[in-house]
């Protein structure tokens, strides 16, 4: 089929890149936004615009709040019938479920505290299973006041899941699609280097004044090669994070008995009880345990704050408390976990030093998940992600430029469709993202289901951009540039400025006030303004190129006409 290895690689690179490139574009762009997901959360929920806090007193503030949390209604309605054994009696009503597990989580970038309760199913179908109905709450740790659940954390609960699951949760299909795309990305990187290996001799070349096909290929190769380590490592570590998920889920199918046995052995070895004793008992002071854990960390020369705290088997003789350190000062996601007896408050277990393999794994996943505190590296990651997005986008444009003449002569609409889809995934995605931010500022905070409507605006505007891209794409068939690129750039620029102005009007936070005082909001505003300026520049540039293309297209059809007259 192919006369050379290089041709085979070119085929692989072109067709797999084209089909999965659209997914990769979404992954790269929302990955770049996810670097600052917490900052986007602050922008979208103005009530949470204050400095990050350390975890407040558990006994005095958090415990009473956790005791008042109710199981989530949706979770109860979906999962309770599946977990409950009807032969033992009717289902326990939602509000009467007993708590089994409490947890609280915060990071150095989170002013808010996220907490949750795992409620026990008293008469479970499978007593060995993980029988929990959940209830979560986000609070302001300064006052203990609950923040309305209806407000969507756009950064960490929409853009971030978009990055790894496309927010398509049906049977977790989104995660699988992104996984396949990531796998293809690895293949595309290797095959790309093979196709363009001669390019190493002109590594730094970009010729913007050459014809579009040439200069776009330059940019594609350049952005692919300069950030090759980033592209490779992020794709690889992304796959690694989900490795146990992408491989057949054997631990819960064929190996289920072994998995359960391992849990028992582990519980024996660590001294952390696997099951409840069934004897109700009062719990010791959690704050005292937190103090002990902090003291132990300081002794080990790594003083730190609490990042994650979990109480297992709440109010039971077997209860124990796990306290993990917030890992903001290093790459690896290290918890230095301390486990205490919940009744006596004694230290049961301190996690031993990790093996070299575990350390490597933690470094690799940690460099991708970036829980560390390092604003400079965060921006470098944004740079890497956006360079990747340029690489993918220029790949689409090269595909179209290379084929549009041939397709026009054959009467094929192939390049027209690819161009329209490229417009949708490049400028259309930007418009959808910024529309969501505008909707966030326009819809009233107390609106019921606000988060839902924000998502409707996101998908709706993206859909409109798709229609617009196809409507305007006929230009490609006539050897011209689709005006949709320029029009959507302008729309994006307008909406981005609107988002900044609306933020000012609705919250009173303008740049003069936030810059140097509250970077999370100032950073989002500034990024929007800079993106808007770039979009305007791109639109003007496209206008000039469109005019040139019109002249060329006229020449082209004149030649055609002459040729057909013979």
């Amino acid at each position, binding site marked *: 089929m192919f006369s050379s290895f290089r041709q085979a690689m070119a085929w692989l690179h072109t067709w797999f890149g084209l089909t999965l490139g659209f997914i990769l574009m979404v992954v790269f762009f929302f990955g770049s936004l996810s670097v600052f997901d917490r900052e986007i959360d602050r922008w979208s929920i103005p009530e949470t615009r204050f400095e990050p806090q350390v975890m407040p007193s558990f006994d005095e503030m958090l415990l009473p709040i956790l005791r008042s949390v109710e199981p989530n209604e949706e979770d109860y309605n979906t999962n309770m019938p599946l977990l409950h054994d009807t032969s033992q009696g009717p289902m326990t009503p939602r509000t009467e479920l007993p708590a089994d597990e409490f947890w609280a989580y915060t990071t150095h970038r989170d002013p808010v505290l996220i907490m949750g309760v795992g409620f026990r199913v008293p008469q479970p179908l499978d007593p060995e299973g993980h029988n929990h109905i959940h209830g979560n709450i986000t609070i302001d740790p300064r006052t203990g006041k609950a923040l309305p659940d209806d407000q969507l954390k756009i950064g960490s609960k929409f853009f971030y899941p978009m990055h790894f699951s496309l927010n398509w949760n049906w049977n977790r299909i989104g995660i699988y699609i992104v996984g396949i795309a990531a796998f293809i990305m690895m293949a595309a990187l290797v095959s790309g280097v093979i196709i363009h290996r001669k390019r190493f001799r*002109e590594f*730094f070349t970009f010729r913007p004044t050459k014809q579009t096909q040439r200069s776009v290929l330059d940019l594609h190769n350049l952005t692919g090669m*300069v950030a090759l380590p980033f592209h490779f490592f992020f794709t690889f570590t992304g796959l690694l994070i989900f490795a146990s998920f992408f491989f057949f889920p054997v631990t819960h199918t064929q190996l289920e008995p072994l998995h359960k046995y391992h849990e028992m052995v582990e519980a024996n070895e660590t001294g952390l009880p696997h099951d409840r004793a069934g004897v109700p008992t009062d719990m010791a002071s959690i704050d005292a345990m937190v103090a002990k854990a902090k003291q132990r960390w300081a002794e080990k020369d790594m003083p730190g704050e609490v990042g994650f705290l979990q109480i297992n088997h709440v109010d039971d003789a077997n209860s124990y408390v796990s306290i993990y350190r917030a890992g903001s000062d290093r790459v690896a996601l290290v918890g230095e976990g301390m486990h205490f007896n919940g009744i006596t408050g004694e230290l049961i277990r301190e996690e031993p030093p990790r093996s070299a393999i575990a350390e490597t794994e933690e470094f690799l996943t940690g460099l991708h998940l970036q829980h560390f505190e390092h604003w400079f590296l965060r921006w470098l990651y944004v740079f890497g992600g956006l360079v990747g997005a340029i690489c993918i986008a220029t790949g689409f444009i090269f595909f179209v430029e290379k084929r549009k003449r041939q397709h026009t002569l054959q009467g094929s609409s192939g390049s027209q469709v690819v161009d329209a889809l490229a417009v949708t995934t490049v400028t259309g995605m930007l418009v959808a993202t910024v529309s969501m931010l505008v909707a966030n500022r326009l819809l009233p905070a107390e609106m019921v289901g606000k988060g839902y409507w924000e998502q409707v605006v996101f998908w709706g505007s993206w859909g409109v951009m798709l229609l617009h891209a196809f409507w305007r794409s006929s230009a490609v068939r006539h050897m011209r540039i689709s005006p949709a690129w320029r029009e959507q750039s302008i729309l994006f620029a307008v909406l981005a400025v609107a988002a900044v102005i609306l933020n000012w009007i609705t919250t009173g936070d303008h740049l003069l006030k936030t810059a140097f005082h509250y970077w999370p909001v100032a950073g989002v505003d500034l990024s929007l303004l800079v993106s808007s300026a770039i979009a305007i520049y791109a639109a003007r540039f496209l206008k000039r190129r469109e005019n040139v293309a019109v002249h060329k297209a006229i020449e082209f059809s004149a030649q055609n006409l002459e040729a057909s007259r013979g």
Partner: protein
Amino acid sequence: MVEIVCWIAAIFATMLGMASLSLSLPNHWRQVTGIETSLPSRSEQLSLRILGYSSLVVALLLCLAADHPTMAVLVWVMLLSLAAKGIATILTWRQHWLKPILWLFNRSELN
């Protein structure tokens, strides 16, 4: 504050490194000299590469001075990409900015 100084120095070091490495390639050498027939001699190519790689090593040391080693390696790798992109941009629109590096070789035709 110290780490910010180290990062800025590291940015310059990686830029210098990438600039030297780019000049060791005949295509980019010609771009900067503006002379179609000009080529770096073998010894010039070698010294450009030595200067290039050693600047990159210096940049790594600067990164290590600023951060925990695990973090420093990441910063360094990302700076390599940033510098490569930066030099490519300079070679496209501002080639003459790289001329000072050529002065090291003091060849009459280049001046």
